[in-house]
């Protein structure tokens, strides 16, 4: 399993990639493997304001439906509409084509509290 070092992680298995004041969010390699074949993604609405650890969308697999939590406070600015037709992108390429939403950070300092690739993979991806 792959956990890129450029990303930050949450104990609930989301990754976040920060570029300036914006960031992309998806689920980790571990999460997609545990969920199995993803069959549906209920995307959040762009423009919605969310808090860190707030459930904001749902990923459904053959096994189960799971809430996806925002890693940070912010406003959702874009969603990956490709997932509507091809939810399997999350299984195939969870860190790039399988991103879920883009968020504008309210408080960029929150990123420092998130897990590094090392601590995530050691403590949570097991």
């Amino acid at each position, binding site marked *: 399993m792959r956990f890129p070092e450029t990303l930050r992680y949450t104990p609930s298995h989301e990754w976040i990639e920060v570029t300036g004041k914006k960031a992309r969010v998806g689920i980790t390699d571990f999460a997609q493997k545990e969920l199995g*074949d993803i*069959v*549906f993604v209920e995307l959040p609405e762009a423009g919605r304001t969310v808090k860190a650890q707030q459930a904001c969308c749902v990923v*459904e697999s*053959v*096994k*189960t439906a799971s809430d996806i939590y925002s890693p940070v406070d912010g406003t959702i600015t874009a969603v990956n509409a490709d997932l509507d037709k091809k*939810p*399997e992108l999350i299984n195939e390429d969870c860190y790039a084509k399988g991103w879920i939403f883009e968020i504008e950070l309210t408080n960029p300092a929150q990123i420092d509290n998130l897990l590094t690739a090392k601590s995530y993979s050691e403590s949570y991806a097991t």
Partner: protein
Amino acid sequence: MYEKLIAELSSPGRNAFSLTAWNGEETSVGQYIPENLLRTEPAKLPEVSKIDIVRHFTRLSQKNFSIDTNFYPLGSCTMKYNPKINEETARLAGFAHTHPLQPASSVQGLLKLLYCMERSLSALCGMDAFTLQPAAGAHGELTGMMLIKAYHTKKGDGVSRTQVIVPDSSHGTNPSSAHLAGYEIITIPSDDRGMVDLDALKANLSSRTAAFMMTNPNTLGVFEKNILEVADMVHKAGALLYYDGANLNPLLGICRPGDMGFDVVHVNLHKTFSTPHGGGGPGSGPVGVKSILEPFLPIPRITKNNDTFLLNGYCPDSIGKVSAFYGNIGIIIRAYAYIIINGINGLTRVSELAVLNANYLMSRLAGSFNVPYKEGVMHEFVISLKKEAQTYGVRAMDVAKWLIDNDIHPPTVYFPLIVEEALMIEPTETETIDTLDEFIEHMMAVKDTMRGDPSLFHELPRTTEICRPDEVQAARNPILTWHDRN
């Protein structure tokens, strides 16, 4: 063999009816129905001969897998035998030929039965009052949550108590029902014995808690030994304790949710009280309450005035109606027949045997399979096939398919969520030791086959019309409607 749909059997001009000629005056349908609601072309109804209709539906009925044909150890669903006298009772003309709009004075016998059913359930569950209106278990849960909300609102706490706590082993409907009633869900972990973690409960109870929802025994089949302490903690926080009656089957005549401190319960007549379950019939989820919640019960309430039974619609604090009329009456009649025929001694025996059968199966299977939570197991237990999945690549779903090929309905799979590769087995009280032994033999054969040729499992089942559907494709691109290609 593939059974064509009734629409595919259709051939223009065929029919299965003959009507006598109409000698009266003909009028246009447009006189009675607004023009914009009238069809512009004939409905595409199947045109089929009588014998083809009979054969089609008879063949379909024979494809049915049922408790009347095979062993059905589907955990948490309590797929028990439905005694035929239930059916005979529900078909008595005085019950079967009533109409929901008849005046109460003309259905006194039926109202008496409903009244007695409410009293019987109250006595069995240790509650003060029952409503029979909810049409299924989850409907009962929603009704229960609405009662809890009405109670807190009346006390002035309605706005501040916004949370409902559930254990991580709970039935999925519990958090769903509470959410539908407008509550925020807090999930707490189970302890290493599979019971409610008291510290986690304590940490989450507060002046914001409206209720704690649980079932006892829980979904691992384990009796919550600390239930009195749990009730005490919940009540001290000013919250109410909700009982999901899906697992009531091992408790009849032995102990009562009301005595354990539960304030609201729902029972599933289609589980514990032997009415049809699954595709076999509508459900019924009566809700019982302690007296503090009685004013909020749905209307109408059935009341008795001397020897007359009334449908009382005047209850100012009631949450209103939760059913168009008074619930699934035909099902309630069946369940009442079951209660009367068994009596309290018979019902106690039902529960004793349900527990005995489950524990017999568990102790025989525990030598070959991992049963992660064994302590205090009642009427069902959960096997984890995690090790088998890792070693042989044979998963709970594969074992389920094996059992299908051996004419056994698979146990519940992948639930509860806290057990990996779960198989949840509930034999119920009606099975003989021979049936249980046969099931054990099949499970042993499963184990032997895994050791021999595990790859075989991935092609199962072989005996069914549709063998292994592509579940991923079916979920991603479901085709839900039949379209006439012509």
